[in-house]
């Protein structure tokens, strides 16, 4: 076949197409849930949150609230017609506190009224009698008392005790990283609309429409087919709208059920920050045995997370943390234990990286300690411990690292920035400046792609071709700004060889693609892209048959290219062929389905191949600290990010930049501060500081690793991008440690945990000065 033109379609894969809603976003016409006009009679809702970290709920009295103007309904746990359980993994996690309130901010009751002001005013009039109980607020306390929300998890290889004893050198230590609020700019919101008979339609700002569907059905005592959940777009999510959205949607649906009216529940920012879960803070303890070259021989680690009051997604977060406690390093004898500690704080949940960042934070603390002990550069110690190719290539959980390119990625970084020279500039600066000290550090990343739980790695899509040649695409993934919709449209455009403008992606709906997984684990494009490709391929095969009959050639000779369909030098427009298929009564619609191959995971044994492949990356960052005030600035960040053969390099660059800055926030300015009564002090942007335009490094260069197609057969050989670059920001933590260590001539390991607020940096500086004096 020669006649098909070499001319490329517009917006196929590998092209930097704009976000599909870009025009809507810049003109304000893209609708978020709170912007969609509601029908008259729609009610607004407000929550009543527990003011106590731990208290028995003795009674709930709605009399005064119900008497307030405009109030239509009030509900508490006792008013739930179905099962008060929205647990995503385990069981027994109520949407409304049942009998006992377990954190400050725990939703205890909800009000629906004609206006939002009326609902919020009435919420204050609900009279709840509490019997206050003593709270458990810290990881240490929970550890001491053995309070866990899920059983301990373990990944183990070799015999770590004897291996530690046999190691020539040995160190023990501790590191901590804080939690993080998602601070999606669009807060949690849902609109529940009762339909005919028992139907309930829910519009939800959720990453997981299927879980909202299940949660609402459980709460209302309905079969799943009575509940339909739709989501067009979210104003950011980052994991915070995976399980947490179900609480909001569930309560809206309960009020809608009770009033038989549409009910909208939108949380005010302060309530959102108090009532919904965040990234898990971790306390990490380690004991490491190594040789004088810095090669790790044995490592015993404890990862203890503050899970909050219930399990939510914590078991899965812990599993991922343990599966990333190796980062890029071969650990011959290793024991990794993970504990999800129960405290009377909000239940922590998914957040971009999902335990991976904390897992890597731990091992990098170990590498940093070993390097300082031996007075070797971090890079040298790392290099001696990197997974090999064909040797030392099995992870603690028994998966062979087959696609290892970390040395190539590090070399790419070094080639771009000349680390040795950069280092000597930093040292020269530090010699000349007694007060402001600079630090430099690198960070390699290897991040596993697929949900740990094998079952979740499946996706569906639905594609229609209309008789004018335009294409309607639907899939199980949700758009939260990450560019998923445009990428999948590109995949379908490429499959049909039509310009991407002819492909329209519609709102995600449980009524169109059922039984979906959350859009999470960076896997949105990998899975939904493949499912869409499957659907498009089925339709294309039927169209090719029709074209073959029309041209009188075998179907194998039909070529789709440049918005046309070719048989030798004869051709039809794609739209003409679509119309022809319809006339010949050939279906132009298909579902598509995908399950990720090769993967398996035994959580009990902590063994398997949980990940289809790994994504790699590396960063080098420079910071400056003021040793008198503890202030810090990140001055320069240089990144190399692997994204396979990128489907959309512009989107992938944006994801890399955004993820890095989010990681930077986690480690620097974003501090969740609780008082002794378990009240969150930083529950709004005036006190909780996400990075602003002046906090990002003024020199910030991101490079996508060129010529690096995925060795696994992913969608057009691309790789996932959403989470991995977040962990590159750990370089900033290490660079700050380097700056502090410079005060002690780099001999001692600094005591610097995250987030690195000025207070923590100042304390680390003072400690370093005292110890090195």
């Amino acid at each position, binding site marked *: 076949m020669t006649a098909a033109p070499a001319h490329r379609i517009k917006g196929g894969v590998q092209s930097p197409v704009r976000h599909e809603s870009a025009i809507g976003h810049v003109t304000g016409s893209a609708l978020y849930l709170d912007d969609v006009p509601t029908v008259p009679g729609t009610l607004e809702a407000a929550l009543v949150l527990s003011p106590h970290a731990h208290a028995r709920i003795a009674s709930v009295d709605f009399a005064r609230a119900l008497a307030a103007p405009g109030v239509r309904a009030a509900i508490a746990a006792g008013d739930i017609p179905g099962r008060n359980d929205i647990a995503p993994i385990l069981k027994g996690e109520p949407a409304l506190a049942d009998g006992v309130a377990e954190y400050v901010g725990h939703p205890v009751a909800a009000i629906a009224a004609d206006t939002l002001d009326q609902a919020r005013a009435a919420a204050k009039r609900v009279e709840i009698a509490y019997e206050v109980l003593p709270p458990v607020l810290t990881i240490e306390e929970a550890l001491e008392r053995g309070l866990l929300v899920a059983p301990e998890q373990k990944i183990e290889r070799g015999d770590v005790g004897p291996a530690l004893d046999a190691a020539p050198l040995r160190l023990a230590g501790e590191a901590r990283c804080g939690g993080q609020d998602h601070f999606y700019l669009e807060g949690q919101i849902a609109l529940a609309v009762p339909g005919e008979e028992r139907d309930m339609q829910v519009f939800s700002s959720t990453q997981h429409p299927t879980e909202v569907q299940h949660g609402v059905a459980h709460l209302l005592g309905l079969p799943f087919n009575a509940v339909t959940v739709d989501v067009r777009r979210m104003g950011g999510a980052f994991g915070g709208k995976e399980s947490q959205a179900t609480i909001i949607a569930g309560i809206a649906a309960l009020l809608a059920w009770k009033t038989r009216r549409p009910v909208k529940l939108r949380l005010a920012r302060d309530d959102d920050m108090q009532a919904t879960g965040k990234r898990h803070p971790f306390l990490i303890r380690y004991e490491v045995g190594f040789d004088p070259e810095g090669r790790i021989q044995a490592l015993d680690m404890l990862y203890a997370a503050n899970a909050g009051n219930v399990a939510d997604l914590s078991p899965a977060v812990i599993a991922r943390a343990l599966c990333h406690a190796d980062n890029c390093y071969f650990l011959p004898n290793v024991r990794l234990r993970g504990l999800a500690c129960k405290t009377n704080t909000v239940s922590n949940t998914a957040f971009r990286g999902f335990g991976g960042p904390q897992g890597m934070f731990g091992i990098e603390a170990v590498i940093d300690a070993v390097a300082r002990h031996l007075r070797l550069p971090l890079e040298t110690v790392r290099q001696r411990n990197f997974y090999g190719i064909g040797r030392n290539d099995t992870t603690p959980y028994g998966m062979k690292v087959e696609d290892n390119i970390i040395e190539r990625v590090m070399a790419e970084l070094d080639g771009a920035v000349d680390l040795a020279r950069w280092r000597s500039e930093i040292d020269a600066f530090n010699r000349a400046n007694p007060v402001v000290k600079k630090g430099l550090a690198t960070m390699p990343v290897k991040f596993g792609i697929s949900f740990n739980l094998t079952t979740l790695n499946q996706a569906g899509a639905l594609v229609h071709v209309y008789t004018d040649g335009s294409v309607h695409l639907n899939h199980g993934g949700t758009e939260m700004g990450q560019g998923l919709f445009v990428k999948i449209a590109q995949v379908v455009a490429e499959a049909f060889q039509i310009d991407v403008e002819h492909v329209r992606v519609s709102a995600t709906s449980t009524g169109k693609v059922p039984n979906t997984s959350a859009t999470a684990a960076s896997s949105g494009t990998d899975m939904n892209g493949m499912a869409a490709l499957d659907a498009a391929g089925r339709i294309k095969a039927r169209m090719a048959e029709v074209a073959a009959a029309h041209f009188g050639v075998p179907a194998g000779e039909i070529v789709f290219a440049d918005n046309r369909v070719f048989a030798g030098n004869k051709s039809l427009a794609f739209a003409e062929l679509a119309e022809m298929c319809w006339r010949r009564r050939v279906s132009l619609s298909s579902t598509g389905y995908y399950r990720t191959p090769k993967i398996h995971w035994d959580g009990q044994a902590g063994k398997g191949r949980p990940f289809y492949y790994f994504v790699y990356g590396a960063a080098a960052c420079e910071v400056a600290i003021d040793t008198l005030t503890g202030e810090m600035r990140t001055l320069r960040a240089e990144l190399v990010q692997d994204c396979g053969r990128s489907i959309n390099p512009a989107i992938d660059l944006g994801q890399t930049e955004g993820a890095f800055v989010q990681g930077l926030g986690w480690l620097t300015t974003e501090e969740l501060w609780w008082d002794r009564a378990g009240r969150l002090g930083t529950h709004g*942007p005036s006190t909780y500081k996400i990075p602003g335009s002046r906090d990002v490094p003024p020199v910030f260069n991101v490079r996508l690793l060129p010529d690096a197609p995925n060795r696994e057969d992913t969608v057009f050989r691309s790789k996932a991008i959403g989470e991995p670059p977040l962990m590159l920001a750990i370089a900033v933590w290490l660079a700050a440690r380097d700056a502090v260590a410079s005060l002690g001539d780099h001999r001692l390991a600094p005591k610097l945990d995250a987030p690195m607020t000025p207070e923590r940096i100042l304390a680390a500086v003072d400690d370093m000065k005292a110890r090195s004096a």
Partner: protein
Amino acid sequence: MPTVNLTVNGKAVSANVEARTLLVNLLREQLGLTGTHVGCDTSQCGACVVHVDGKSVKACTLLAVQANGSKVTTIEGLASGDKLHPMQEAFREHHGLQCGFCTPGMVMSAVCLAQNHPNLTEKDVREGLEGNLCRCTGYHNIVQAVLAGAQAMRR
């Protein structure tokens, strides 16, 4: 209830509001101009920025009655018909958006910034956008977009 008279996106508008109604609520709820977003309710995030008499203002910080007699421009009033304002075009072109929730406020702040700084520098942009939070982009592409948009506005 007090009546406010103002010009919104070139059209004269008259509305009855409560004395405590915020400008953002008037715009979103009474006038249906939902491109102006609410991200924080507490004057921190900048998602609600509009122009009041040519100045960028957080619409959740101003009472509707305070805008009485003013000319208000929202994100919906920036383009002329189908033709995007150069700043809107620059945000689109330079991928200065992801989830888009911060975008209207960013664009409105950026237009004002460009008008006030004839020779806008990267530093000016970073300082000038300090009151607008974005959780998605890391600001890199936003800064590029604002510089390009400012240049296009001068042409």
